[in-house]
């Protein structure tokens, strides 16, 4: 597989049944197109890790891909609950492992840093530790006080959507950064989707913006609009209407199945999905440009 490849090929090559997958993105740059491709390719028994499972994991769970979910906030942001995930848990079809945001992200950061664990200060809220034995305690060797620890999380695969990457996978992203970088460094394999593939000269004009270096990346896929119904800062807006709509779709197993048939199984790829959304949605999500002031690196 060449590094610059189709999303279909990248999912085929990099994601295996039973893998622990971390599809990154805190509300922003969520790689929905990759989630749909995984559903289409019928991956099974995945362990799906994400601070906020969001609609992407709700859909993958509905698509039968998941054995277990690892999370810290299982809500439809600004709307309510994740109903497909809840139904799967209540039916005993889905294992789960639960954290707070900080303990979840500390796990990933430890994984990215090559550490076996990271400490956190105590929170005095101990019920979560009672149901999740991954929370442990250590004595701070300096003060003698207790800290909490969580173990490193090293997913088999990270899926990270970015605004721009070059053909070697050097990635630049901006706006809300979530845990994109930590996921890429923590994982064994890295699948990048990008709104734009740019010349390396663009990347090299602003090296501080490059959060993921190409040499840790296994596949780069050019997938415009990959993040819908979430968004790509500067490229298209968040589709709040769909987030509200999903609440209804996911409440009804029949409707959910019909939605998957129509919007995932029935389509070849993200381009077909975007065209199917139609010009009115395109217009609604369109964003006027607002450019950053450049900085001077100097011809040193």
């Amino acid at each position, binding site marked *: 597989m060449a590094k610059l490849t189709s999303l279909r090929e990248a999912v085929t090559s990099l994601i295996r049944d039973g893998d622990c997958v971390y599809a990154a993105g*805190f*509300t*922003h740059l969520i790689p929905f197109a990759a989630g749909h491709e995984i559903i289409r390719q019928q991956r099974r028994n995945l362990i799906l890790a994400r*601070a*906020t499972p969001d609609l992407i994991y709700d859909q993958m769970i509905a698509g039968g891909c998941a054995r277990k979910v690892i*999370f*810290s*906030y*299982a*809500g439809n*942001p*600004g709307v309510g*609950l*994740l109903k497909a995930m*809840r139904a799967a*848990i*209540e039916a005993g079809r889905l294992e789960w492992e*639960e*954290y*707070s*945001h*900080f*303990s979840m*992200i*500390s796990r*990933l*950061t430890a994984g990215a840093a090559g550490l076996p664990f990271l400490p*956190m*200060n*105590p*929170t*005095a*809220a*101990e*019920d*979560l530790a009672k*149901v999740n034995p991954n929370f442990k305690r250590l004595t701070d060797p300096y003060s003698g*006080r*207790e800290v909490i620890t969580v173990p490193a999380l090293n997913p088999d695969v990270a899926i990270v959507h970015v605004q721009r990457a070059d053909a070697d996978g050097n990635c630049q992203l*901006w*706006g*809300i*950064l*979530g*845990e*994109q*970088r*930590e996921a890429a460094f923590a994982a064994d394999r890295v699948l990048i989707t990008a709104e734009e593939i740019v010349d390396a000269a663009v990347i090299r004009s602003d090296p501080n913006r490059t959060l993921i270096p190409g040499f840790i990346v296994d596949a780069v896929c050019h997938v415009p609009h990959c993040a819908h119904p*979430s*968004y790509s*800062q500067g490229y298209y*807006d*968040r589709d*709040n209407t769909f987030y509200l709509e999903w609440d209804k779709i996911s409440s009804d197993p029949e409707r959910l199945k019909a939605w998957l048939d129509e919007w995932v199984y029935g389509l070849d790829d993200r381009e077909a999905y975007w065209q199917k959304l139609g010009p009115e949605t395109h217009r609604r999500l369109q*964003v006027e440009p*607002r450019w950053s002031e450049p900085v001077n690196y100097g011809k040193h």
Partner: protein
Amino acid sequence: MDTFTAPELMTINAARMLRDGDVVFVGVGLPNLACNLARRTHAPNLVMIYESGVIGAQPARLPLSIGDPSLVSGALSVCSMYDIFAFYLQRGLISVGFMGGAQIDRFGNVNATVIGDYHKPKVRLPGSGGAMEIAAWADRWFIITPHQKRRFPEKVDFCTSAGFLSGRSQRTQSGVRGGGPQAVVTDLGILEPDETGELVLTQLHPGATAEQAQQNTGWALRTAPQLKNTDPPTVEELALLRDLDPQRIYLSSAG
């Protein structure tokens, strides 16, 4: 005095509790409106930080989620999730947090995880998100919630966020840095912890009674010796607040 909705009443009373210079860890909805109202009235130097890593936002529209892109465009700073929790919250830079949740109990503990048994829940809620750490590490925190009996049990089914645990001394002994819950603002009045950490009724909104509050609380709600009445929302407060949510997404009676 103008008429106003319950969300308006709660938001205005929450805004009054914020101090100039406070650094607030804030979500969307009523806390976001309360902070913006405080900034436009008595707390112009209040700093708002979103869990999504955004600092000093100037959104062109009312944000509908903490990840709204309008929070980013024109903000002062944006950082990663690990950084916002470690360098800001755990470091002790946050003076105020706002907590949501399905249940808050006698000692200010909050449940946002499950109703019923954890492994066989009656209702599975979204879970902690940032709430576990905000409750522990912010200097002080508040809750804005309708006053309903099912929301105020004697003891939470699951302690997502520590209030005073089973009493103020227990929180102190736990060594967490923050001061815990300072007030629960409801549509009937305000509950504040007494010296033992128990939430007691300290203020009533115009027209509400201590009996109403008791009937809508799941424990024997004590009333503070000097029970006060909150000042009704002023015309200016209402005008500024409604200007922040012109479509009444959060401020309508059902909000």
